[in-house]
């Protein structure tokens, strides 16, 4: 166990540096410097002042030195200051991360709670009406533009019917609510965004669960279980299910980047002050430090997600433990 984890942690290190490298160079290879918006494009700023500023920010140095400096600070969780309001980027990200994590975690729970049973049922009753309905919903989930559906649902449930709130994560009178009132209020605001966030991966997971289950049902050990006279429900729930659910753990880990990336869209639509919205605002304002910070953090969150999925898989599957 410890050996496996150590090996896995060590394999994270090069990927981590790769991520920081890509985040840094993607931003810096783009033409133009972040100081330009306020300097060369601004006639009031003199040439000397521009040089001085570039020197302060370190833009006069070769790019690999800039990267080394940035990385050195990055490791100590110092992502530099935002060009918009001069506040530390790490602080800005920390403020925004909880909402995004809350939404994405809830989406993950929803995906598991609906996707896995739906996939299993589809697989067991192959060709039934329920299976066909699930398949149709899966294709709809894969193909519908999420933001479009969000807009339509928002105008239906929020504006026409007044059932659900359309923006933000809490009501105006949030401060005056009791603790349980607060929790309910946030939950109330989360319904639409979480449903939208979950949609795409939900379709993926139930589809995957279905084919995994169908694959397992054809295995020899299932035939053995049937041959020794077990009734069908014992075969399905005791023998097949355990083996079919395992690969889903990995797929769940892989759905993390899509979820985090999608938060740009649903946080913009529902005006939720999370990391996705912060990223969008920073991109529009060319706030380089914040962009690099969020890009790296987003990728590192994915890396952690995959890592946890691997560890969970390791704990759940005795075959890997033995082969180690």
């Amino acid at each position: 166990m410890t050996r496996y984890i150590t090996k896995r942690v060590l394999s994270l290190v090069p990927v981590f540096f790769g991520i920081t490298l890509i985040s840094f160079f993607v931003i810096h290879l783009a033409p133009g410097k972040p100081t330009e918006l306020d300097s060369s494009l601004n006639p009031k700023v003199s040439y000397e002042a521009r040089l001085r500023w570039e020197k302060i920010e370190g833009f006069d140095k070769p790019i690999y030195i800039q990267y080394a400096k940035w990385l050195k600070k990055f490791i100590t969780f110092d992502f530099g200051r935002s060009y918009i309001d001069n506040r530390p980027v790490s602080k800005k990200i920390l403020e925004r991360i909880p909402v995004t994590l809350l939404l994405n975690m809830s989406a993950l729970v929803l995906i598991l709670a609906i996707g896995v049973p739906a996939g299993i049922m589809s697989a067991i009753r192959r060709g039934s009406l329920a299976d066909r309905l699930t398949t149709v919903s899966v294709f709809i989930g894969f193909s519908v533009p999420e933001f479009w559906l969000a807009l339509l649902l928002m105008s239906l449930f929020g504006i026409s019917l007044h059932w659900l709130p359309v923006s933000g994560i809490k009501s105006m009178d949030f401060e005056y609510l009791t603790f349980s009132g607060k929790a309910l209020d946030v939950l109330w605001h989360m319904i639409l965004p979480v449903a939208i966030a979950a949609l795409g991966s939900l379709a993926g997971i139930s589809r995957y669960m279905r084919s995994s289950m169908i694959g397992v049902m054809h295995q020899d050990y299932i035939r053995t279980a049937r041959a020794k006279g077990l009734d069908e429900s014992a075969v399905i729930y005791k023998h097949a299910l355990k083996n079919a659910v395992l690969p889903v753990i990995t797929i769940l880990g892989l759905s993390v980047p899509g979820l985090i990336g999608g938060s740009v869209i649903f946080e913009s639509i529902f005006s939720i002050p999370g990391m996705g919205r912060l990223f969008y605002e920073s991109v529009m304002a060319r706030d380089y430090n914040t962009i690099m910070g969020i890009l790296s953090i987003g990728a590192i969150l994915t890396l952690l997600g995959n890592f946890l999925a691997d560890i969970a898989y390791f704990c759940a599957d005795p075959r890997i433990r033995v082969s180690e």
Partner: protein
Amino acid sequence: MKELLKNKIAFAGMIFILVIIAFAILAPLISPYDPTQIDSKDILSRPSAKHIFGTDTLGRDVLSRIIYGSRISLSIGIIAVGIAVLIGIFFGSVAGYYGGKIDSAIMRFVDMMLCFPTLFLILAVIALLEPSILNIMVVIGATSWMGVARLVRAEILTLKERDYINAARLMGASDCRIIFRHLIPNAIGPVLVSATLGIGGAILIESALSFLGIGVQPPTPSWGNILMDGKSTLGVAWWVTVFPGLFIFFTVLSYNLLGEALRDIFETRLK
């Protein structure tokens, strides 16, 4: 092809795609109005015989904009995926064929790219460059080749042990010839499936970018930015938002159905 015709739903998808492609090619002939023509007397009018899908906030005919928009949205989908497939085949075949350190270096790079929340990376690069149609195609392509690379690598790993590859090598064929003449053509099935599914994905990404305001820039119509134009008036004029969305939905759905059908065909062929 015959097998494809048997699958009725996939066949319907294929027909829909062909119709949309015909729309795109014949746009000037079939669109009832000029898609950029502003008519201040005919703003936000409901769908009617004159304007089948109504008009938008500037009085432009929504149907004409959708027809012209299909040119942009489809070409972005197809070209972006073409770029992704080329990059993916290159990295995948090099990694699979040469193996060893080259393989592990490329696959680590793939792992790194897969860690980035897709939309974050695309958003950052396009906003920093500038949202031109060409940039959008290239950036979507450059950030979605990893799946193809993995597929091609896996295929080539199994193919390169086959006897006919040894035979080719004994005859003195160069690496390049073996890869391009003998390996890639035999690995193309799964790539075709993934490309078909990918076109739908790329159309969705383009529409999401347009929705965020950094996709195809107005007045050029793309399905995403027509929809975006209707966002603010959704309460009073649903048609500006609903119709382009339906076109995106059915087009992506058709590509997905076609892709799934192709996958079934290739998988049964292997068995």
